């Protein structure tokens, strides 16, 4: 199904994917008593952060991410994706790593878990990284920088 006026959008796949993400975050919250914030769990797994979950638990969550993506890849017969080249990937990775530690979270922890809890910090963080992301893409487009291959 497509959305009138937005030929590229996949609203049903988006809704279904979001329901799964919500379910996953709810299992983490109600089951393990912790926020499913990927940046915090990744940091914990490699020994760069101190949050409530055990390190082995953080590893289990992090390893699950590619496992789940692999299952979908197999079931759908392959996923479309285009990625940036090495230089923009390194710049982006560094900024994401530094930014999520300083900002105490990313799209999952702030954007999904915190916003749904109406946390003031998460609302401000989410508005900030959305605005920064929008401005970055607009600036790169204005400069004619095409990063995805």
């Amino acid at each position, binding site marked *: 199904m497509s959305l009138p006026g937005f030929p*590229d959008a996949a609203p049903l796949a988006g809704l279904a994917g979001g329901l799964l993400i919500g379910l996953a975050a709810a299992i983490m919250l109600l089951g*393990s008593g912790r926020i499913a914030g990927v940046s915090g769990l990744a940091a914990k797994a490699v020994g760069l952060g101190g949050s409530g979950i055990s390190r082995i638990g953080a590893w289990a969550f992090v390893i699950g991410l590619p496992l*789940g993506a692999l299952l979908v890849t197999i079931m759908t017969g392959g996923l479309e994706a285009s990625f940036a080249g090495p230089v923009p990937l390194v710049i982006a990775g560094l900024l994401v790593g530094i930014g999520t530690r300083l900002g105490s979270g990313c799209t999952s922890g702030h954007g999904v878990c915190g916003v749904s809890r109406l946390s003031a910090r998460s609302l401000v963080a989410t508005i900030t990284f959305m605005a920064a992301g929008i401005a970055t893409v607009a600036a790169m487009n204005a400069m004619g920088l095409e990063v995805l291959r």
Partner: protein
Amino acid sequence: MNARMFWPLVSGTIFGAGLALGGMTDPARVRGFLDIFGSWDPTLAFVMGSAAFVMAIAWRFVARMDQPLFAEKFFLPDRSDLTPRLIGGSALFGIGWGVAGLCPGPGIAALVIEPTAAAIFVVAMLAGMGLVQLIERQS
């Protein structure tokens, strides 16, 4: 495998499946969402909206629970102060997100979709996290 590992593994696997199904492991789709002045792709709003909807229900349950189902206690953020660090960090994260169309979850999940590109991103991300830790330890 005990509950300490099992439920996070289940959660992570469902999370990764949701990211892939929702198209979030495709940086073109994520950058398409951020490209509101160009050919805007609203898919990410559907993903975040339905995920937050489910979580809003989960928070209602938490309010009535003394402890989680499979752990001794809740570890939840309790801060409400809006600091320059929170805003500056989130801005840096947003810039990085816009540059390559990847945030931590999709970056890690994409290790099985485009291993080399995802690995470059994830290693750089962990290096960035390590840098913050290093600087904060010294000060």
